[in-house]
C-alpha cells in the first residue's frame, strides 16, 4: 500500500476558489494532493464541489462559464491552470466525466480510438492498447460496432474509462464511475481501476458518492463539503472515523440501519451546518 508521505506528489491543488457565471462561488479554498501511483478519493455529498474540483484541474470549467479565481494547480511542479485541456492530456492527465459523455454517434471502437487522439507513438502501439482495453472490458469488444448512444449505462461507463485509458495517461480523474451501475459492475469497475493502477501504474483521483466502495479501493481520501475540504486522511483511517461511518458509510455503532427505519430518525451532521 502506498501512502502520500513516501511517494512523489504528482498533482497539487492549492487553495483554489471557483466562481461560476461571475457570481456563484462554489469552491472556497480547496487544497489536495495526488501522489504518484496512488488512488486518491474525493468524497462528499451532492453539490459539495467534487465535479467542479476535477474540472478545475482538467481545465474544463471554461466552457461552463466557470473560472478559477484564486489558488494554483500544479502538476509535476508546473503550473497548469492556464493550459488548454488538450495540452493537459498530452501531459498525461485525462478526465472521465460524470455522466459518461460518450460520443453518441460514434461506435464504441471509434469512441475508444478518439482517446488516442493526442498520441504520436504510432498505430501499432495504439492497436495494442485497444486490445488491452478490450481485455479489461470484454463487454466492449462484443459491442464494438454499436453506436455508443444505444448502449446501456454500464457499457457507456466502461467505454468512457476505456477511452481515457487509450490516451496512455499518467493520471486519470474519474468522476463518479459507479453512478447508476449495477453492484456487480461497480465492483468490477473498481477492480479494473485497481488493476490499471497496479498494472499500468496510473494514478487516480476519484470523485465518488459511493463512499463504501471508494474507501475500500482508495489509498487516501478527502472529504469535501460545501466547497471546502473538511477532513482528509488515509482511507483506512477514514473508514474507521465515526463521523464518516455515520454519514458516509451509513453504519453507526449499532451496525447498519435499515432504510425502512429512516422515518423515525434523522442524521444530523456535526461539522459545518
Amino acid at each position, binding site marked *: 500500500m502506498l501512502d502520500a508521505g513516501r511517494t512523489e506528489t504528482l498533482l497539487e491543488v492549492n487553495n483554489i476558489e471557483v466562481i461560476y457565471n461571475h457570481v456563484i462561488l462554489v469552491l472556497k479554498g480547496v487544497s489536495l494532493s495526488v501522489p504518484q501511483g496512488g488512488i486518491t478519493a474525493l468524497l462528499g455529498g451532492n453539490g459539495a464541489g467534487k465535479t467542479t474540483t476535477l474540472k478545475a484541474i*482538467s481545465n*474544463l470549467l*471554461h*466552457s*461552463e*462559464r466557470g473560472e478559477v479565481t484564486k489558488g494554483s494547480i500544479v502538476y509535476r511542479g508546473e503550473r497548469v491552470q492556464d493550459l*488548454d*485541456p*488538450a495540452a*493537459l*492530456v*498530452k501531459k498525461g492527465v*485525462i*478526465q*472521465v*466525466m460524470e455522466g459518461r*459523455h*460518450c*460520443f*453518441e*454517434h*460514434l461506435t464504441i471502437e*471509434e*469512441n475508444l*480510438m*478518439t*482517446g488516442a*487522439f*493526442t498520441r504520436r507513438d504510432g498505430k501499432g502501439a495504439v492497436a495494442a492498447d485497444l486490445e488491452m482495453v478490450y481485455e479489461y472490458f470484454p463487454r466492449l469488444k462484443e459491442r464494438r460496432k454499436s*453506436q455508443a*448512444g*444505444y448502449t446501456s449505462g454500464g457499457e457507456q461507463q466502461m467505454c468512457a474509462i476505456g*477511452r*481515457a485509458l487509450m*490516451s496512455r495517461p499518467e493520471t486519470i480523474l474519474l468522476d463518479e464511475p459507479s453512478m447508476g451501475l449495477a453492484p456487480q459492475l461497480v465492483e468490477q469497475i473498481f477492480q479494473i481501476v485497481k488493476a490499471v493502477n497496479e498494472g499500468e501504474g496510473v494514478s487516480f483521483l476519484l470523485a465518488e458518492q459511493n463512499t463504501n466502495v471508494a474507501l475500500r479501493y482508495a489509498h487516501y481520501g478527502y472529504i469535501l463539503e460545501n466547497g471546502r475540504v473538511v477532513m482528509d486522511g488515509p482511507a483506512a483511517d477514514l473508514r474507521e472515523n465515526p463521523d464518516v461511518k455515520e454519514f458516509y458509510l451509513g453504519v453507526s455503532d449499532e451496525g447498519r440501519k435499515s432504510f425502512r427505519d429512516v422515518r423515525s430518525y434523522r442524521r444530523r451532521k456535526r461539522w459545518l451546518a
Partner: protein
Amino acid sequence: MLNEIFIKPFVDMVEAPDFLLQVLWEGLVSGILYALIALGFVLIYRSSRIFNFAQGIMVVFAALTLVGLHAMGVPAWICVVLTLGVMFVLAVTIERVVLRPLVGQPDIILFMATIGITLFLIGFGEIIFGGENKVMITEELGIPTDSVLLEPWGGLLILEQKDITAVAVAALLVVALLVFLNKTRMGRAIRALGDDHQAALSVGISLQTIWVLVWFIAGIIALVTGIAWGARAGVSFALEVIAYKALPVLMLGGLESITGAIVGGLMIGMLEKLFEIYWGQPLLGGNTETWFAFVLALIVLLFRPQGLFGERIIERV
C-alpha cells in the same frame, strides 16, 4: 385542369426529349453548385454543430479575393494560392474571435454568431472590393469555356465545358472529404467534436486546431464554389443569396452527411428545374424555384425527420 397537371407535362417531356435532357442537365449543374455550398455547411456542422450561415458569404469573399488579386496583376495560379492563404487567415480569425469565446453555447447562439460574421464580411468585402459585378477569371485559370453541342434525337443539347469541369471537381471533392472524415484520425475527431465537445475536450481533442482546420477546408470549398458559380454568372454580392439554396439541400440530405449534401443537391437541382419548367411556368406563374426546394425538403423530412442520410436522432430517457 387535371390534364394540365397530370398529363400534359409528361407529354411535353416525351415530345421534346432533347429539351428534357437540357432541363435535367441545367438542374444537375445547379444542383452540384448547391451541393458544393452544402458541403461547406456539413463539414462545419459535423465538427461543431454550428449551422454556418456564413458559408454563402465566404463563397463571395473567396471569389472576390481571387478576382481582386488578379486585377492587381498577380498571375492566376498564384492568386489561387494567395486566396487560400486569405481563407486560412479568415478561419483562424473566426476561430479566435468568435468561436472560442462561444464554446459550449446553445446551437442557436452560434448560428446567430455566424449571421453576425456574415454581416461583417458583407460590409468588409464591399469596402475592400466595391459593389461592382466582376468577371471570373475563368480562362486564366485554364478552365475551358467552350460549349459542347450534342444532337440527341435530332434536337439540341448545349453542355458548357466549364459546367462539366465543375461537376468533375465536385465529385472529386466529395470523395476526398468522405475519405478524410471516415478514415482519418482528424476525421474521427471532427465527428466526436460534433457529438459532445466537452467530452472531446476531455480526451485532448483540441477544439482550436480542429475548428481552424474545418473552417479552412470550408474556405477551400468556398473558393471552388466561388469559381464555379462565378464562371456562370459573374461575381458580386448578389451571389450571397444562393446560400439560402443550400439550406434545403442540407436538410433534405441530412445535416451531418456528405453523401446527403450531394444527393440532396442533385435531387433539388433537378426536381426544382423540372417542376419549374413543366408545372411552375405554365400553371403557377413561374418562379417556383424560390420555394420548391424548401417544400420538397419539408415533405421529405415529414417522413424522415433526420433527412435522407442524416444521423438518427437518439432519443432516450
